[in-house]
């Protein structure tokens, strides 16, 4: 398929899903009322629902989805491993820990932005530890090992917070937050996460050509003028900024960053640089679709987004593995 056509189709898909997402919700607004509410000339209630509830939710789905798809594609390209995902560096787990601590200490109840800010703080501490642990001339393998160590530690502390949580309600709140969701997010969440996500995505997009060169191995890439140390630093910082901020507003949403690049890779001739924009768009579409599905499948039950992506993503991943095995045999 022509690259331009593919990008056009995905942009269209994201646009359609964005509109559908704006139209779905328990308020049961008809399309005209919804539209009038969105542009602020309808009745007050519709305006509130559209501008304060559905718009931030749909915008965050795009931001978070694009982050997951793009960072997954970059990390698979940089680590030269189709099984890498945004979780391998431990950034998401550390951001989660920050958020959990905000809930645990009660800070999140005092002022609402404490949670995403603590999550971004967790991501920043994690990236510092990652760069220190892996060292200045780290190979991808050392980066993965350091990421696993950080991820395990963050998960352990999250468990500790759950273990020691002062009351069952706090524990429940922590567990629910960790499941990953975009329900009841405000425009504040959008404005808080968007700068970090945009910055991170710009950094990640800048790596396209380097990732292409790296597909022939680090030595050959370096002989073509690519500086491996710089690629690693940009990849790590870009992932931290984007995934840290995304996790801060949505919790952990699994499998999108792993499956979306995988699925789209054959459509771009496996070229890492071309995979970046289509994975960002594909991720945005996937999270939008999942976020619409949780509202349609179980209205009023608050089915968590992260639960749905895992339930759909895991079997899909299994199928990918079987497919790969079939090709090898």
């Amino acid at each position, binding site marked *: 398929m022509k690259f331009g056509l593919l990008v056009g189709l995905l942009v269209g898909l994201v646009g359609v899903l964005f509109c559908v997402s704006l139209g779905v919700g328990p308020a049961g607004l008809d399309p005209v009322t919804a539209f009038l509410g969105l542009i602020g000339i309808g009745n007050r209630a519709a305006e509130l629902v559209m501008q304060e509830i559905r718009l931030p939710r749909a915008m965050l789905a795009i931001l978070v989805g694009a982050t997951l798809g793009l960072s997954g594609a970059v990390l698979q390209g940089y680590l030269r491993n189709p099984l890498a995902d945004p979780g391998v560096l431990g950034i998401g787990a550390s951001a989660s820990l920050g958020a959990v601590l905000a809930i645990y200490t009660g800070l999140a109840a005092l002022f609402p932005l404490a949670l995403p800010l603590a999550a971004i703080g967790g991501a920043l501490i994690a990236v510092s530890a990652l760069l220190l642990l892996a060292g200045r001339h780290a190979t991808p393998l050392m980066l993965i090992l350091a990421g696993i160590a950080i991820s395990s530690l963050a998960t352990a502390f999250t468990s500790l917070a759950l273990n020691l949580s002062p009351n069952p309600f706090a524990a429940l709140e922590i567990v629910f937050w960790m499941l990953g969701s975009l329900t009841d997010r405000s425009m504040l969440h959008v404005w808080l996460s968007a700068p970090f996500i945009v910055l991170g995505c710009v950094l990640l997009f800048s790596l396209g050509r380097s990732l292409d060169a790296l597909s022939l191995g680090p030595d050959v890439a370096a002989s073509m003028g690519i500086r491996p140390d710089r690629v690693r630093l940009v990849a790590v910082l870009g992932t931290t900024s984007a995934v840290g901020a995304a996790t801060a507003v949505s919790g952990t949403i699994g499998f999108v960053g792993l499956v979306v690049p995988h699925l789209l890779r054959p459509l771009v*001739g496996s070229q890492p640089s071309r995979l970046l924009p289509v994975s960002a768009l594909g991720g945005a579409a996937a999270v939008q679709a999942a976020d619409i599905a949780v509202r349609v499948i179980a209205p009023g039950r608050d089915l968590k987004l992260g639960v749905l992506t895992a339930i759909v993503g895991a079997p899909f991943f299994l199928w990918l593995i079987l497919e790969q095995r079939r090709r090898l045999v």
Partner: protein
Amino acid sequence: MTSLSVENLHVSLGGREIVQGVSFAAKGGEFIGLIGPNGSGKTTLLRALLGLIPSTGSISLNNVDLRTMAAKQRALNMSYVAQERDATWPLSVETVVSLGRTPHIAPMQQLKAVDRDAVEAAMREADVADMRERPITELSGGERSRVLIARALAQASSVMLADEPTSALDPAHQIRVTEIFSGLAANGRLVLMTCHDLSLAARFCTRLLLLSNGRLEADGPARQVLTAENLQRVYGVQAFFGEDEDKLVVVPRSATG
């Protein structure tokens, strides 16, 4: 004309000195065969010349210190065909060869007409134009080797370093690949190739460098380097020596070491 000068080069990896004081000078038009036993430091020497690993001593290209050159500038002067021919993704042959233009393209730019021409010329020169659509992962070893050479050719550098480009290839492919390099040197480039096939090196290379334990044991034309005494001392082999069309033929026949 291109000139490469290496003086007293030392490389240590993991606390072990792999290259111990190598010096040589070379210029465009030479096709140099770098030979020596496994572990003698051939690959390490090439990687040090490319600036991929730290080294001490002096390396200068056209009288400019290579270590002071920006990575991109060095890439415009020197290209590399690595021994590993693995490719991570099933990229098409044309895409792989186009990667050679990486140092020529400004950030955020696409390939220009001049880049496309260079890619086409490189594919023709390495005889891979017919398979441009095929994924590199589905090619045979010999085809893949030629594609990776075309990739380095597209980089259009005056110096080309190749690490065992003929290993694991059938005789016809060995000759075809070596002829590509030979042609490059005839057109004024400097080619440095590591090789284990002594007769192949003797037939095509204009000069041989014999490495042993990180030191240069011999440097010169094939007849001067591939002597019974050198082969015995460095490789620990006795060899049959013959002549074919004025070229030296060397066939090792017993290991004595």
